[in-house]
């Protein structure tokens, strides 16, 4: 059976007639995904970002009020401020692992600058967060996401 499979692919060309169906199905899946996820996750009125570790809120980065650290994480977070730029370093429980997060008040963005999470360091390569999205560091279970404006002045007539 395996010999037949080997022969089948040995004789095959880089393009066969039935490939059209497979490529069409692939294109259909991609287009369907684009359409279904169009406009997903757009927040225009955010007031800052939050950092959670293992689904527990650790740090809040407000545009107007600055950085606040939650009580259980005081020993595991360091904050440094210079020229409208916060450098927040979040350490793991054993203090061997860390994620250095930069929070820029000028363009209201946040990103992971350094980390020792894994070889690939996916969190460092995430694009800057501005008005939507999430940065996730899987090895350290650290998540950075936006927070909606809780202190927005209500518009007259708005429910």
């Amino acid at each position, binding site marked *: 059976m395996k010999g037949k499979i*080997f022969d089948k692919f040995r004789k095959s060309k880089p393009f066969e007639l039935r490939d059209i169906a497979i490529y069409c199905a692939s294109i259909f899946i991609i287009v369907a995904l684009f359409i279904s996820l169009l406009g997903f996750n757009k927040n225009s009125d955010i007031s800052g970002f939050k950092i959670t570790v293992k689904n527990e809120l650790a740090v809040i980065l407000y545009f107007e009020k600055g950085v606040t650290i939650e009580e259980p994480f005081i020993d595991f977070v360091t904050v440094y401020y210079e020229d409208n730029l916060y450098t927040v370093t979040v350490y793991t429980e054993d203090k061997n692992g860390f994620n250095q997060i930069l929070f820029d008040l000028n363009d209201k963005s946040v990103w992971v600058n350094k980390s020792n999470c894994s070889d690939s360091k996916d969190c460092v390569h995430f694009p800057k967060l501005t008005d939507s999205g999430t940065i996730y560091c899987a090895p350290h279970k650290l998540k950075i996401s936006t927070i909606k404006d809780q202190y927005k002045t209500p518009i007259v007539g708005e429910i």
Partner: protein
Amino acid sequence: MINKKLFRISLTAILAVFATLTFMLENLFPPIILPGARMGLSNVFILLTVILLGPVESVCVLIIKTLLGSLFSGNVSAIMYSIPAGLVSLGVEIILIYFIKRISVLSISVFGAIINVIVQNGVFCLVTKTVEYLVFIPYLCIISAVSGLIVGYAVYLIIKKLPKKYFNDN
């Protein structure tokens, strides 16, 4: 005279080693354009295992690659979403290889790569509760389709060059 059983075990082990090494090497490089986007070159060896040895051996290679690769590259949590994604895409590839006639290995590789991305990111979003990450999936699908083509073409070239006498049924 080749001992068939020994040959199969040895070849499975060699392909598993190559798949793991490629996976680990790839992890040392930054992702392509988007976070988490990789070429998936280790899939060359998994697809080769399906064609040369069979489904059971390919599942073994996939599990060895994911477990050891994630462990050595320091991302153990990746096992949670890499194994289900790998198994589903491998299942799809096996069905296409064994049950569809006149189909090229390139298209199988492309389709498998797209399914892998969808399942992997779906599971990732569920496990990590990061629904926002779903927006990356269509873009990752495009990257994976291109890398699937490259992987498929590599497998196509390797199969053409392999000596036929070792892979006959009798």
